[in-house]
């Protein structure tokens, strides 16, 4: 047991770094994922990840594998797309999902165009799948800051965000915070995805945001418990994925997401809230 679960982390520094990295990711991204799921915006994370990719790629082209350049590129691309999509949705008849789809595709096309104009055949695999085993101090610090900012900001906007999710008309009738809160929330999606792409890549980074949220939905009907369950699921998947990848030598990023997927499949079957087992064998009905 010790040999399998604990020894890799004790013996190897890169494993400890990876552990801290996925822990920070789960803490920041999973709560955001819960709100995305509850707002039926689960695929928005994926769309935003595509929007971020070109920004990061441009940063990479300009100054190589520099944390600062890639991160700012990603953040800028993400914020611009989120902002434009939100503005168009609020100012016109187009719904937010449609306008987001348009803008992330524009961002992606622009990114690909710019990359090909530069004429370099760079290896973008790093962006796509990240490298959780190569996190240096600067990246870890950056992820920790992002997670802290994300958790703080979420606690600040928590009350209006919940009202905006459950009854947006009511929030509109009592305050003008609806739009700013939504924008702040989208900004949180972006910074968590940017955090995620260093460890898991732009595409798989969405996984640590959405899969734990979907798992949590199967276990509780209380939003606080749901957030806690999602964070816990994220951390457990992180540890499990790292351990498996260490022993079986498969790529660690995908292993983390696959570990989360296993928890998801188990939740579908055994989940207390709407799981298949409960539906097939509900037990005798109650008196009232």
């Amino acid at each position, binding site marked *: 047991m010790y040999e399998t679960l604990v020894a890799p982390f004790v013996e190897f520094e890169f494993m400890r770094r990876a552990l801290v990295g996925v822990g920070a990711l789960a803490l920041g991204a999973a709560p955001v994922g819960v709100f995305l799921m509850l707002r039926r915006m689960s695929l928005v994370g994926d769309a935003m990840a595509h929007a971020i990719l070109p920004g990061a790629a441009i940063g990479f082209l300009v100054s190589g594998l520099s944390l600062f350049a890639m991160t700012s590129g990603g953040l800028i691309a993400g914020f611009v797309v989120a902002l434009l999509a939100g503005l168009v949705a609020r100012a016109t008849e187009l719904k937010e999902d449609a306008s987001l789809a348009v803008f992330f595709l524009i961002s992606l096309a622009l990114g690909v165009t710019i990359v090909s104009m530069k004429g370099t055949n760079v290896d973008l695999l790093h962006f796509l799948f990240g490298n959780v085993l190569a996190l240096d101090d600067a990246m870890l610090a950056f992820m920790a800051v992002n997670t802290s900012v994300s958790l703080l900001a979420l606690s600040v*906007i928590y009350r209006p965000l919940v009202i905006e*999710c459950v*009854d947006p008309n009511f929030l509109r*009738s*009592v305050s003008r915070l609806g739009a700013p809160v939504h924008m702040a929330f989208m900004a949180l999606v972006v910074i968590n995805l940017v955090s995620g792409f260093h460890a898991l890549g732009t595409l798989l980074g969405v996984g640590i945001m959405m899969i734990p949220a979907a798992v949590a939905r199967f276990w509780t*009907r*209380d*939003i606080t418990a749901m957030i806690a369950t999602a964070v816990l699921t994220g951390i457990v998947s992180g540890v499990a994925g790292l351990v498996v990848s260490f022993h079986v030598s498969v790529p660690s990023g995908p292993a983390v997401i696959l570990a989360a997927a296993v928890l998801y499949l188990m939740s579908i079957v055994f989940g207390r809230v709407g799981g298949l087992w409960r539906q097939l064998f509900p037990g005798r009905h109650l008196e009232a």
Partner: protein
Amino acid sequence: MQLRFKNLTLGYDRHPAIHHLDGEVASGALIAVVGPNGAGKSTLFKGVVGALNPLSGHIERAGIGARDIAYLPQAAEIDRTFPIHVYDMVAMGLWHQVGVFGGIGDREHRKIKDAIAAVGLTGFERRTIGTLSGGQMQRMLFARLLLQDARLIVLDEPFNAIDSRTCTDLLELVRRWHRERRTVLAALHDIDLVKSHFPETLLLAREKVAWGETAKVLTAENLLKARRMCEAFDEEAAACAA
């Protein structure tokens, strides 16, 4: 006087749903707004609460700010699958007292409990909103209105698809608001209910058919006139000269 409509035209995409409406809502009035579907009741309410800007004319609100208005829309866009308890949902009514960061102390907890008791939902506090029946949902929304403590309360068809007992209970709250000198506007379809509980009525059919004492407004002749009003939304309509 609390509200004054001056040559008010409200609508969508230049098509009027309320056309050249004039009139006054006295402070403390209890007014039923009656009219067929498409008469402009909901549109008028959206204008009153400030969710829709007039196409022309205007609404004067004397000493009424956004926070003095409580509004129950017809089809509340509430996500009933959201994991939130009845208690927290009702507590939203305290928004203007507690805002984004304000704590909910003993005094607020007592207010919330009282409001839940007043609508007969005691014992349902920890239920998630997805488990409520239509009537219980409406009771919960009335509890939230109670906590909003507003001077002007706008109810858009509050008793639709509600059983008679719930209707009676909620109507008692409306009467209580009236006794407390709050102004209440309610869109209703049940003519008998209006006649027995609402002193004043505005009969709408895009234009004002009649407005005043309920017995004088809800005559057979006026109701027929309202029914004949054309619901058609004419794509080819010319610009209104008035």
